[in-house]
């Protein structure tokens, strides 16, 4: 049941009615119970077999949180550290088992074979639980935040379980942090008209970017990666330039829909993207791209590493950044392509650290014509091209295909079949429109926050605009593609 489906609409109407029923609306506990039931139903609909894993890990981490807090109150800090370590190991262990065990086993076996040892073991048939990377990170951060005394543990299992399984975000994030989200679960939610209306607009914009841009561009990029050995270089370069827009439209589209649904239920879900292609260097790009993941890894991995490596000066920062980005890469899945993608981005941080520009982030300003300054624009284009190159590796099925694609981009020549027809050109224009709107609305959370446009103060004019977007969606909706980040 994907968020942009008819079945989700029906499901959400039922959830909405139950959530705001008079019996629920004055009792956060009742609302949380209802939310929990809805979330488990939603997750079971996606994969019933993984309910025990979700439930079991939720209960275990909730108990660990209580135990940790009790030991901290008693002043047993060493024991508290051990409990936190246990929780982190457990969380990482779940991820390693479900996501990486076969990958490491296969890699180890091929390594042994390459040095002359012949091993034969069969890999396990492990089913990857949908959303495991997202809810496991929530569980780990819960315990760490208790240990850091940023939060007190939740005494109410229902409330905690509803936070972990919160249905708009469980499958693909954003990864909400407990210090921001748990307090929201403890308060009564009455429908806030402005927030809910904004949520509806955000869902609409998410549907547009996902269904009209991402799903249509996917047709072009899938063909390019499927037949890169026979297609001309021009088509491959075009596909490489389009893939970042497709990925952004897909994942930002999903995030917008999730955040919008959250808003209708009265929650402020963490923002996941902040106009990433307006970034002027790689450090800024990562502050704007998949913010909830980058923020998580920065807080729990990069910062501690930075402290640990402080004795080696700038190279300590570089080392921490490289490890940080390799982990971000590998978080996406068990494939060397993701590791290489992370390493590539990590290496791009070296000049930033050495030149001292890693932390600088001047506010973007427009010139007299409302356009970006040329100096900024050049940097944005350069950053975009570097991102494109990295995503060629990210998109590939394996390292061989990644290098094959890059090689074909320069050696296949210009003659050959085109994968971009007249509709393809239209979809590319949609992609460019998305980037333009990103620039115009750069101060806003999403594209349809239009209160600064005086002509759209009339409700019916705004309705006209929304109907036009819906018309565009039903006109140009592409062949439905699974959300890319569901696989992670």
């Amino acid at each position: 049941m994907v968020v942009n489906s008819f079945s989700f609409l029906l499901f959400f109407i039922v959830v909405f009615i139950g959530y705001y029923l008079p019996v629920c609306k004055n009792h956060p506990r009742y609302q949380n119970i209802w939310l929990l039931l809805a979330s488990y139903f939603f997750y079971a609909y996606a994969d019933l077999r993984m309910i025990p894993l979700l439930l079991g890990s939720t209960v275990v981490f909730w108990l660990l949180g209580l135990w940790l807090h009790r030991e901290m109150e008693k002043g047993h800090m060493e024991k508290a550290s051990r409990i936190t370590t246990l929780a982190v190991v457990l969380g990482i262990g779940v991820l390693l088992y479900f996501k990486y065990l076969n990958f490491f086993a296969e890699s180890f076996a091929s390594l042994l074979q390459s040095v002359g040892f012949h091993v034969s073991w069969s890999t396990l048939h492990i089913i990857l639980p949908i959303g495991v990377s997202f809810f496991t990170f929530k569980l780990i951060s819960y315990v760490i935040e208790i240990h850091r005394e940023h939060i007190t543990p939740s005494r109410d299992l229902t409330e905690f379980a509803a936070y972990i399984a919160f249905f708009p975000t469980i499958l693909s994030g954003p990864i909400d942090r407990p210090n921001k989200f748990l307090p929201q679960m403890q308060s009564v939610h009455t429908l806030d008209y402005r927030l809910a209306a904004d949520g509806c607009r955000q869902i609409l914009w998410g549907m547009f970017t996902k269904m009209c841009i991402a799903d249509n561009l996917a047709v072009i990029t899938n063909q390019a990666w499927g037949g890169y050995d026979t297609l001309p270089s021009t088509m491959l370069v075009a596909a490489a330039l389009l893939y970042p827009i497709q990925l952004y439209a897909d994942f930002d589209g999903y995030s917008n829909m999730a955040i919008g649904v959250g808003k209708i239920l009265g929650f402020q879900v963490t923002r996941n993207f902040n106009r990433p292609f307006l970034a002027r260097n790689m450090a800024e790009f990562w502050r704007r791209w998949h913010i909830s993941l980058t923020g998580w890894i920065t807080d729990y991995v990069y910062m501690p590493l930075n402290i640990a490596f402080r004795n080696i000066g700038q190279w300590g920062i570089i080392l921490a950044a490289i490890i940080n980005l390799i982990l971000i890469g590998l978080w996406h899945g068990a494939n060397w392509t993701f590791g290489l993608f992370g390493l590539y981005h990590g290496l791009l941080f070296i000049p930033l650290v050495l030149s001292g520009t890693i932390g600088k982030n001047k506010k973007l300003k427009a010139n007299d014509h409302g356009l970006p300054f040329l100096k900024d624009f050049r940097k944005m284009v350069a950053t975009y091209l570097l991102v494109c190159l990295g995503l060629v590796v990210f998109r590939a099925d394996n390292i061989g295909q990644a290098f094959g694609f890059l090689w074909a981009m320069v050696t296949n020549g210009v003659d050959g079949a085109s994968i971009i027809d007249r509709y393809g050109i239209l979809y590319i224009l949609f992609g460019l429109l998305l980037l333009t709107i990103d620039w115009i609305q750069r101060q806003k959370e999403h594209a349809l926050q239009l209160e600064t446009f005086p002509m759209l103060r009339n409700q019916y004019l705004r309705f006209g605009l929304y109907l036009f977007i819906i018309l565009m969606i039903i006109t140009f909706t592409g062949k439905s593609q699974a959300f890319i980040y569901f696989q992670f």
Partner: protein
Amino acid sequence: MKQFLTTIAKFGVLLLIMCAIIEVALLFRPNIYAYKSQYMEEHYKEIKVLLLGSSHIEEAVKPQLVGEGTFNLAISARLRRFDVALAEMYVPKMDSLKALVMPVDYTNFFFERQYENPNTKSVAEDLSGTCRCMHMKYMGVRVDPLWYWPEILNSKLNFMQRFWNGRETLQECDSLGYVKLDIQKRPADWDMRAIPALIDSTKVIDQEQYDKAFNQFERVAKVTYEKGVRLVLVAPPVYKTYQQYINPVVLNDIHMFVAKLQAKYPNVEYHESLFAEGFEACDFQDASHLNDAGAEKYSRMLADIIYPHL
């Protein structure tokens, strides 16, 4: 809450009005279902050979090469139950009809024995919705008498693009119902497209599904038998990448299925061309669809089967 619901209601009404306008406007745009239905209404008395089925027939048989009075009523992605409904609707009143051609499609024959594949499931649901909607609206086949299925809920139809595409593009087929596939538009990985799902031949055939399928063929066999018409069951050629997926156990089950039908209705013939010789890579658009060159060869082959006995 009241303000929110009022706003949603106001917007919902406007949205419904917009959708209703699109839905009505679509009725006036040409499409392949409307064209074939209209042709049948105007020419059913003259048709001697009628072809039913899905894309494997629609794109594989050129009626003009099979013989005079042949019409290709097959439509891409059509489910068998709609073929049955059309046969029952038209055959009794087609006085010139000599042969009804219908496919025995390996891909979909023992659907329940295929390994579970959520993608296949969603495609099947999509096709089912499209078939139901278009057959009801344009071909008069009503499977849900009390329910209306709007076109705008069927994403596969690209319905809005029908407003600016030309009449020729919209009709899709030639005047006798044949849809031409151009080899120039063949994708790079064509030989791995449209291959059948893996079938678990050790799985026991679901008797309920089997009976349902048999009942569908039986209904067509009965209506043709009563009219003195040959029911020609065919399996068009497939490429070698498809052939390697064909499970001999399952194929044998299909042969037994057909033999059972033939035992009951002597007008039933079966002509299998899955492994037919003379079909090369250049004859295919993908692993199971012939292109224009392949359709020419197969149509002549079919003519040899059908026409001498007309």
